[in-house]
């Protein structure tokens, strides 16, 4: 790999041009976004406690230069049920259910198949600020990352909560910023305020690897798996975006040149995992690297006022979404 880094220099792919469009406005900071696994929907959560659900086909219709039937509204649902800012969202892998974790210590379930439902049909009351949620690929379980240093596993059918039976020693600053399942559910990863990335066995919930100072003493703000579950991409407030090999815990790549020290910055793969996207806060830009060569291939102004809070890429196509401190939600898709 070491020589591969050298050899692939200069052969970076170029990231295609995207067009961007202002989608909608929350009443307060837009804090998070998530695509459905089939890429047909995207939801955003805000500090105004609301959740907006967008239909991608309608967004695209809206972005057509000559839409005949006047303005198209891409927001198909708005959910109001939390009493505190929304932290994270996830879609059920099979059914039309959206879940949200919020600062009010709850996880709420929304059924978006019904046009009139604005409120949750089920609620999980947790003990802590729910910072991150992730559905198990079966849809029968979900993980909640909270101010607690261990992820809470919920059986969706019984609401029973489970914890890992043998946990490593985690200091007081172990609040989880993000938790994500791998594609098979065989593993999950947590990114914590103490700067560590921890990998957990999906079956037994025991910690199989802790990368203690993955981001030094700065908070680790995001972590996600590659589809093949061989690598984890993490992002931290030390302005680093790093790729780790799960088998060895080795740092494989580092994507340099984006500063993010303030917000819960995300680093995400594009749909083909050829590129990595993140945010440069000082210049208010979206930064894109070639995932293999780690070369920076694009830097685009975010078009938000103030640096974006969140960036999320579609799992199925060349499109992503950004959420801003300016309360707005922007959609980006490849120029065709």
């Amino acid at each position, binding site marked *: 790999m070491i020589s591969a880094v050298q050899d692939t220099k200069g052969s970076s792919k170029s990231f295609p041009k995207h067009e961007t469009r202002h989608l909608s406005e929350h009443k*307060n900071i837009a804090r998070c976004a998530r695509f459905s696994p089939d890429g047909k929907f995207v939801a955003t959560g805000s500090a105004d*406690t609301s959740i907006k659900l967008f239909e991608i086909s309608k967004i695209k219709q809206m972005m057509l230069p000559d839409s005949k039937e006047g303005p198209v509204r891409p927001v198909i649902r708005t959910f109001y049920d939390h*009493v505190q800012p929304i932290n994270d969202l996830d879609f059920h892998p099979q059914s039309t259910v959206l879940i949200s974790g919020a600062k009010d210590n709850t996880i709420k379930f929304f059924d978006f198949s019904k046009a009139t439902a604005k409120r949750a049909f089920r609620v999980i009351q*947790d003990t802590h600020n729910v910072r991150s949620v992730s559905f198990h690929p079966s849809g029968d379980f979900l993980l909640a990352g909270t101010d607690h240093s261990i992820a809470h*596993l919920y059986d969706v059918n019984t609401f*029973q909560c489970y914890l890992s039976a043998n946990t490593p020693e985690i200091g007081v600053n172990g609040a989880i910023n993000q938790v994500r399942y791998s594609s098979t559910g065989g593993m999950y990863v947590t990114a914590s305020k103490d700067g560590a990335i921890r990998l957990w066995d999906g*079956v037994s*919930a025991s910690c199989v690897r802790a990368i203690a100072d993955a981001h030094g003493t700065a908070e680790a703000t995001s972590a996600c798996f590659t589809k093949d579950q061989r690598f984890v991409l993490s992002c931290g407030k030390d302005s680093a975006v790093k790729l780790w090999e799960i088998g060895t815990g080795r740092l494989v790549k580092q994507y340099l040149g984006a500063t993010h020290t*303030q917000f819960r910055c995300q680093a995400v793969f594009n749909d083909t995992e050829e590129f990595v996207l993140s945010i440069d806060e000082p210049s208010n830009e979206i930064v894109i690297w070639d995932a293999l060569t780690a070369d920076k291939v694009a830097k685009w102004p975010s078009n938000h006022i103030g640096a974006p809070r969140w960036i999320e890429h579609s799992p199925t196509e060349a499109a992503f979404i950004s959420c801003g401190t300016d309360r707005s939600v922007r959609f980006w898709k490849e120029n065709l």
Partner: protein
Amino acid sequence: MAAVDKYNVESAEILANSALHLPITQAAPIYEQLLTIFPTAAKYWRQYVEAQMGVNNDDATKQIFSRCLLNCLHVPLWRCYIRFIRKVNDRKGVEGQEETRKAFDFMLSYVGADIASGPVWMEYIAFLKSMPAANTQEETQRMTAVRKAYQKAVVTPTHHIEQLWRDYENFENSVSRQLAKGLLSEYQPKYNSARAVYRELKKYVDEIDWNMLAIPPTDSCKDQMQWVAWKRLLAFEKGNPQRIDGASKKRIIFSYEQCLMYLYHYPDIWYDYATWQAKSGSMDAAVKVFQRALKALPESEMLKYAYAELEESRGSLQSAKKLYESLLGDAAETTTLAHIQFIRFLRRNEGVEAARKYFLDARKSPSCTYHVYVAYALMAFCLDKDPKVAHNVFEAGLKQFMHEPVYILEYADFLSCLNDDRNIRALFERALSSLPQEESIEVWKRFTQFEKTYGDLASMLKVEQRRKEALSGTSEEGASALETSLLDLISRYSFKDLWPCSSKDLDHLSRQEWLSKNIGKKVDKSALSNGSAMTDKSTSAPSGVSTASLKVLRPDTSQMVIYDPRQHHGTTVPSNTTTAILAASNLSNPMATVVGAASNPLSNPTVSMVDGVSSNAFDEVLKATPPSLSAFLAGLPSIEGPAPNVDIVLSICLQNDYPTVQTKKATSLPSQRTAGPAPSTSDLSGSSKSHPIPSNSSFRPRDRQLGKRKDQERQEEEESTTVQSQPLQRDAFRIRQMQKARGGSASQTGSVSYGSALSGDLSGSTC
């Protein structure tokens, strides 16, 4: 284990520190020991030599310098050397001065390119200036020497380049104003370029840890970053940023040498260095690098092959052969690969006969595996074009390696190159009769493939059936595998990447097969829920039909502890709690859920807890609710958004006529929020004692929320403020308005709980 300890940096530092305080006779062995482990650790060399100089041990000092200087291009160490030389030659007059000058030249030719060499240049110039000059001729000579030194110094990117330039300007001006102009304008552009390069170079140099000890590569983040930093510096130097001709190569060599002081155990750096030398035409230098590399990493096979390759490609067959022989090492430890590579080498350079001879020898070696036979046979077949020899070799090997399925497959491949289907069949039959069942899977697979290509329909079907029968007992194939399935047909009629069905069909079929395999197991539910057990059983369907995408691992909750959030507030791992506690704790939820349903009856008819325990509780709560409260709840308006206008809600409420209810003062409620359920609230409805209703009027927290939201607009970082730490805000205006609206009426309790209806607030403070 010992190897790991050997390079322990901490203990080395402790050892070196302890040596500082010991007399030299005791310290010397410590230094010697340290320096055999870290031969490029300039800081230890320096400490060692300074200790010797401290006791004026000149011979020992000289000896140490001769051992370390050329391998450690480290400015402080070299300055130590010049100090020593100056001291020794101090009183030797002209001769001594000449010696010192030579030492300076020697030193600058080695470390003059270092970014930290500025002070050395200054010292050198000062030394030249201090040379006595008896007559004008000597004075001119001295001036020329000083000028030359300056001119070299101002084109070297060092930390002191600007100061050196100013000194040089002064010097020239002090010599001759007329000449100065011409000389300075000649050197100005070169200096400018060097200074620009310095600024760029500094960025790379700053990344490097100059105190690092050379240890074998680890996977630690720091080591990797150092490696990257050095690679960047080398790439920068290779780009010849100063656009200088001959000196550029010298700078690159200097950088490589310095790099190897720190990355001494990195084979890739050695290899890069040597290949760079070879590419830039210095074959001898490349060879020297390889020799040093092998001294640093005597165990590295890679470097030996790389070195041998270089030697072979430039025609030094003898030294290449020696390297191969060193790879072979002792007969007992020789690896199979070394045998194979040596045979190939001999075949390339000494011909068929030499290779054959060595093969015959290697056969007898205990470490000879089937690979050697395969490699030699293929060489004979492909290079010598001699199928007969190849066949004989394979046949000879078969006696020994009948039990190796891979060998059988290789042999079969070879025979199919010869189109010798009769012998292939014979080989398969022979192998399958002796191979144990679990090792024969691949061979069977190849046999069926072979029949697919060579056989007629009857033999094709026959082999397939035989294969099924033979493998039916293994865990790989279930009992049902005996039946012919559609998948078998698909595998028979597919060709390369072409399939007689769509990928969807394939998915479907393999899923069905997996299901049918699990039919028997489904009864045992716990086995199914155990994810790991499931994956072990799910095998890919025969002939490359992939089922990988279907594997999902499920959590095995029996390996975890149950966590009941409400009972163990904030504790990390609770003791095993019973479900009874959970059931009890669930009681606190339904109230809010009921209220939520009542408040917006049209919105979502499915509002309920799925959990059986809690749905019972739900009914209980319904029954327990006093009629007045139920009526009140039913009368609540449906609202939009998270923050309904309290005044509107109140006005609607007040229009309704509720039965009289006993009350509390609304104004006292906010303070109760943090104190948990107030005792006074729970006697509002007698039955709710066991499950206190979320008692806090939640239009209060709601108001607070509004206020907080405004705060957030001002204060960006929301993470830092926590719910509990915020003081509750009282909206005095609303309270007064409410009281006014209620007038003298004593009934206010309704407001105590209806608030929670508005928000569905299941606030954690209820437990």
